[in-house]
């Protein structure tokens, strides 16, 4: 399979925080070109690229930036923020960008600052990545010394500085408004929307906020043009995507693939197939809040449209492969324990819903489940999806409903007191 490298071309080849090596390998050419262009022209290139937000929400970046640019100048975007909270289980692509080519991200943010005239940038990086925060800080320091950050960048009169802010262990802070609350030093609970981040973000001032991988795409788009970026992918999904392959697969890791690659190619061709001669049971796509599905859907293309048609979503690009030695109910319990743990507690459907789901799954995995428990799971899922305050609670039930749909027999067996794969204790004892 052809290996297109836009984002990962420098991975492992340069000292990550060295500006000289970055520049020698094509770095900062995007920014140098950007400062010769009008802001509207840059935004148009990003729109032509069909770049969608890579954090999971897949909002078109060009449109987001156009809307932000349309806010009157005196009120215009004050902050460029990078969401580096990468908390979605199974996702480690942003870690690779920050650890191996952090200046690509910094260049993308600086192009944004040039467009909006923003003076302050923040990279909100999860506390678990404390080692990577050091690389980021060092890269920022070196870029400042080399004149790519700080005062009068490249003689344009643009002043732009970036600070690294650490999270402290809260998945919900990946949500935009919770993230800015956390940068303000508060508990990271989501705000009511509207007002949106673009109008009232950090310190209630206009803010542009994107994921690490999204910013990392910007320099290439500016340098090579939006149409060229689009041509790498499919009709409506431009460019390439960093996919995170994990679980029971031979070659785990981050793979950069052009949009249009099938999940089967990713798992069997690039990933070398299922490990230890076992068979695929299901794939959990897009992180813990994504859909779980069996073999039949593997020929779906990695493309926003194709995935949507099949009821799937790319999310963060996590592809967790699970083999047939595992039990779907036991796995689902692990997933829901994560959401129970990470619910911020602000709204009832998410706080209580996740907890009740874990309780039901505990019953099912210990052989105390009843037929009605499966209906209760469905009912809780509906309530959470429709009434939760933010994306966390709205999407947490996705693995529940998709596993129930594809593996109804296995749930049924648990109701009957039997775990077909022998993973669950079925001891009947309350734990």
């Amino acid at each position, binding site marked *: 399979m052809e290996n297109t490298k836009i984002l990962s071309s420098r991975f492992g080849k340069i000292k990550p925080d060295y500006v000289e090596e970055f520049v020698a390998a094509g770095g900062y050419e995007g920014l140098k070109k950007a400062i010769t262009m009008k802001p509207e022209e840059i935004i148009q290139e990003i729109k032509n690229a069909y770049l969608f937000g890579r954090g999971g929400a897949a909002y078109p970046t060009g449109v987001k930036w156009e809307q932000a640019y349309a806010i009157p100048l005196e009120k215009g975007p004050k902050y460029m923020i990078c969401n580096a909270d990468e908390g979605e*289980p199974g996702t*480690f692509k942003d870690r690779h960008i920050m650890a191996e080519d952090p200046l690509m991200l910094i260049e993308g943010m600086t192009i944004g600052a040039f467009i909006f005239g923003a003076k302050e940038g923040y990279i909100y990086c999860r506390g678990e990545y404390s080692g990577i925060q050091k690389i980021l800080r060092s890269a920022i320091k070196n870029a400042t010394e080399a004149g790519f950050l700080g005062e009068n960048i490249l003689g344009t009169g643009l002043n732009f500085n970036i600070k690294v802010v650490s999270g402290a262990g809260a998945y919900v802070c990946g949500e935009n408004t919770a993230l800015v609350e956390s940068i303000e030093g508060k508990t990271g609970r989501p705000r009511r929307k509207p007002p949106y981040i673009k109008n009232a973000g950090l310190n209630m001032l206009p803010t542009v906020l994107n994921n690490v991988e999204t910013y990392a795409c910007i320099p290439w788009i500016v340098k090579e043009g939006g149409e060229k970026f689009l041509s790498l992918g499919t009709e409506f999904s431009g460019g390439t995507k960093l996919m995170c392959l*994990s*679980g029971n697969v031979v070659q*785990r890791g981050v793979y950069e693939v052009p949009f249009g690659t099938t999940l089967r190619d990713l798992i069997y061709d690039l990933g070398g197939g299922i490990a230890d001669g076992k068979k695929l049971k299901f794939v959990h796509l897009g992180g813990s809040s994504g859909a779980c599905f069996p073999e039949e859907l593997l020929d779906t293309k990695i493309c926003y449209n194709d995935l949507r048609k099949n009821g799937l979503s790319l999310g963060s690009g996590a592809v967790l492969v699970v083999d047939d030695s595992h039990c779907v109910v036991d796995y689902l319990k692990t997933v829901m324990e994560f959401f129970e743990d990470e619910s911020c507690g602000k709204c009832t459907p998410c706080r209580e819903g996740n907890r009740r789901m874990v309780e039901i799954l505990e019953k099912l995995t210990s052989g105390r489940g009843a037929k009605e428990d499966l209906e209760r799971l469905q009912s809780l899922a509906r309530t959470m999806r429709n009434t939760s305050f933010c994306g966390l609670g709205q999407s947490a039930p996705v693995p529940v409903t998709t596993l129930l749909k594809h593996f109804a027999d296995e749930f049924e067996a648990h109701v009957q007191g039997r775990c077909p794969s022998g993973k669950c204790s079925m001891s009947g004892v309350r734990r």
Partner: protein
Amino acid sequence: MKIVDEVLEKFRYAKENLIQILLELQMLSGKNYLPEEWVEYVAQALDMPMNKVYGVMTFYGMFSTKPRGKNLIEVCKSGPCHVSGSEGVELMLEKELAIKPGETTEDGLFTLERSNCFGACDIAPAIKIGENVYGNLTPDSLKAVINSYRAEA
């Protein structure tokens, strides 16, 4: 309180830096926690009610109000590690350290905790000790890792 003053100074006594201040103090405590008198001092210095500071501390998973071991061992229990054998790793650690998750060894060297995904899924099952991540763990490699921390002590 000299340590606390230095950290507050470094972060310009700014309220918005509360999380960063607490992270640094926890690291400096040597026992991976936030001593109550330090937190009271911070609240006063930043002119914040103690309940606000406490709210932040208890919201974020990385903070502890109780002393923990010098080395915090976190076993990832999220999906990718779960299907790659994290349960076995946890059992091995429980046996090797003779403690359960949430407990600290008698010598105060290790605290064992379960954690959510820290992005080491490509080398699952993974554990994190302080800032360092160890993956592709086998009984032998895990023992070697633990012993390297014991030798350091």
